[in-house]
């Protein structure tokens, strides 16, 4: 790659890193300056159909915690001690005015803490419309799609009220097309991770993906297209690293430094990091009834996570498939502290990996952790032992 190409990739990655590490949502504030009176909808993990607010001219953004970038003070007084960090830090952002640009906040009730947290938001932020989007847990039910279409319609009503104008089917179709493009680009990015992981480190790929939840998706598409166009020319040598799948990043996010520790010893060739941005695994049809198409895609054309029950997608088998399809040598099965669904799935995952004879390392993390020496030792030992076995 030419020096200017490398500089351009570096600049884009730096821009993404700044977005990820700045708890004041700078891209959202820029968008609002460019769109006076523009409304913003925030949504908590894992999945939300951003096409709906986008079609209304709103800016949808992901609320996904604050890592170690904020000191949690106010939220600690409102939430019990044994609740995960992402619930606290997201609330802290809201209570300290960092999310003052939100007109609507939506929480899918992904876990017991998240459902409760929505009520805390309602009590403490009376001027914000905080809604629960109830995504089906009986996902294989023949009635789930019709229900979800109408639930999306309800959320569309909330959005219409916020912006003061109706959402049209054509507008939704245009938004679906934009998001289809975004999801295609993300799939291309993950193809790079799987096929040529030395061209893009785990931290670089992650920041590129995460930025999508923090900026207008049109801009994200431009940025992804540019990086994907430049990557094949990047000068990077393939290294002798084991190929791993990272599982456990569907909700609370591991710190960048934790991913850096892993990437020093391993190629992360696939993962569930921010799986909500890649929840829909194929293109959503742009003909037909848009909300029905989005509902069907959520149920029938989607990935998996600990917070959706779907007998068609047994999670241990889905993990094994992810490992198989990415030609990984091993898995890192992580879970955030205090994460009930993640920690429960971890046990089933470990059993499935043991039964399949796939080497794995179990890690626990917290978004706000800052010390990684112990983890580095564990990861290095794990990777070295495997390299020795493979030799």
């Amino acid at each position, binding site marked *: 790659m030419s020096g200017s190409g490398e500089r351009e990739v570096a600049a884009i990655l730096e821009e993404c890193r700044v977005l990820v590490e700045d708890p004041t949502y700078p891209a959202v504030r820029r968008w609002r300056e460019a769109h006076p009176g523009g409304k913003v909808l925030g949504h908590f993990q894992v999945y939300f159909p951003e096409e709906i607010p986008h079609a209304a001219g709103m800016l949808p953004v992901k609320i996904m915690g604050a890592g170690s970038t904020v000191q949690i003070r106010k939220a600690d007084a409102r939430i019990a001690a044994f609740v995960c960090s992402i619930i606290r830090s997201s609330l802290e952002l809201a209570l300290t005015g960092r999310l003052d640009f939100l007109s609507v906040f939506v929480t899918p009730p992904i876990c017991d803490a998240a459902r409760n947290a929505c009520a805390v938001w309602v009590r403490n932020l009376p001027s914000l419309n905080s809604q629960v989007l109830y995504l089906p847990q009986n996902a294989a039910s023949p009635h789930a799609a019709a229900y979800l279409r109408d*639930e999306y319609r*309800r959320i569309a009503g909330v959005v219409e009220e916020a912006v003061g104008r109706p959402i049209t089917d054509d507008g939704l179709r245009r938004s679906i097309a934009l998001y289809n493009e975004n999801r295609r680009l993300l799939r291309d990015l993950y193809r790079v991770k799987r096929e040529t992981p030395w061209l893009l480190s785990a931290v670089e790929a992650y920041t590129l993906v995460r930025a999508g939840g923090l900026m207008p998706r049109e801009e994200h598409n431009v940025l992804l297209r540019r990086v994907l166009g430049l990557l094949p020319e990047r000068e990077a040598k393939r290294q002798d690293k084991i190929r791993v799948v990272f599982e456990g990043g569907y909700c609370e996010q591991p710190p960048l430094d934790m991913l850096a520790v892993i990437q020093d010893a391993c190629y992360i060739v696939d993962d569930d990091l921010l799986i909500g941005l890649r929840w829909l695994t194929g293109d959503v049809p742009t003909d037909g009834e848009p909300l029905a198409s989005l509902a069907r895609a959520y149920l029938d054309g989607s990935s998996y996570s600990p917070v959706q029950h779907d007998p068609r997608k047994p999670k241990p088998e889905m993990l094994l498939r992810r490992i198989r399809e990415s030609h990984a040598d091993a898995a890192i099965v992580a879970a955030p502290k205090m994460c009930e669904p993640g920690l429960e799935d971890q046990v089933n995952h470990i059993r499935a990996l043991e039964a399949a004879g796939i080497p794995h390392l179990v890690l626990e993390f917290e978004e706000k952790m800052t010390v990684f020496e112990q983890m580095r030792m564990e990861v290095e030992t794990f990777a070295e032992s495997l390299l020795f076995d493979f030799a």
Partner: protein
Amino acid sequence: MTTKTPTIGSIRNESRRLLEQWWREMAAADHAGRPTAYVFVMGSLGELLRAFDLPVNCPEITSLQTAVRGASLQYLQAAEDSGYSPDICGYVKADVGLHLKDRQHPNGRIPKPALVIATNMCNTYVKWAEIWEQMYGCPVFVLDLPAWRGTRAGAGADGEALRNDRRYVEAQLRDLIALCEDLTGTAFDIDRLREAMAQVNRMAASYHAVLALNQHRPAPFSAIREGITFQGISNLYRGSPEGTRFFELAREEIQDRIRLGMGTLEEKYRLLLAGTTCYAALKRFAEMFEQWGGVFVHSTYMVFAGGGFAPGFAYDLARPIESLAETLLLSAWRGWSMPMFYAQDWLAETVREWSVDGICFHGVKSCRTTSTGLPDVREWLRTRCDIPGLFIQSDLVDPRLWSDAQLKNRIDAFIESLAGRRATAGR
């Protein structure tokens, strides 16, 4: 003139008989290999399962009982040794330990699950069900009960959103009925469902009457001692004549206690429990308040885990399935919003109607459903309604999380503050 024989003691005797009978039924089902349904207390669908003669196991209750029997730690440790984190719900771990120990409970042996029904009333229900799914390969039916939706959601939905939710719940119930028919080989008989629902209507009426009797001063029962018995019977015997009869008997006994001037103790402070008690220290928890004359006259737990009996609860027996769907949905809505997530209004109203002096908010590590927002609700009620509240933390079943001295200090100080308020108010 004949004098009615006081019924004092019948709650204790009859509840003991019913619980022992239930354990015998579990052992018999296990011995005979009879298909058994595993259900949860919030949305158990006991009335529907009765129509198929399916015995019902409530794992929350069996987990709770391991703690009451002082045996939970061995089960918790068995689960942790097999990989379950200390941060996971203790009910789940006590149950996993039970299954790892060949389903041998201190009270008897439980059968394997042939069917699991899990509502979304607690997300951990679904994860728990997935563990049995992995262990036994049994079918898991997740019943979605979309409920409280946030800002301006109030105590119930209306309009098209509610109609959508209702359609969905009813359709799922019809699927569940088909699944039960397949599993048992028994054709669904709507009259049997209607019969069980009629029993639930009667049980709910008596249950409410019992709760309301505790508005009396002094309170005729403790919401955390006998309250737990009421919850156990209301769930295990939901839809049965015996369950209905128990609550009619309970109502009579409590009326007799009032007539005879019997309170639970010398009542000085009337308290309300937000959350659950600690079953690993059940007596001790109550004693810490009772030694100061503090009696729990009500609890949120008796509302959300007491069978979903909202005030005025009544199935429309003319259209059983539709009514079951609507009532489940509204119970979930009320169960989530009123005593749990958005509890401040219900708590403030209960403080007024039950003449409560203060609220104990008990957060338990095991249950984020009931505990996550308790500190916030406490703060809300303190600052906006001047209702005193104590926030303490331990667990449902894990004795390692019970810190006796620390809790006693907090509770003593709280009672002292209630005394101070009373003195200041010149009462």
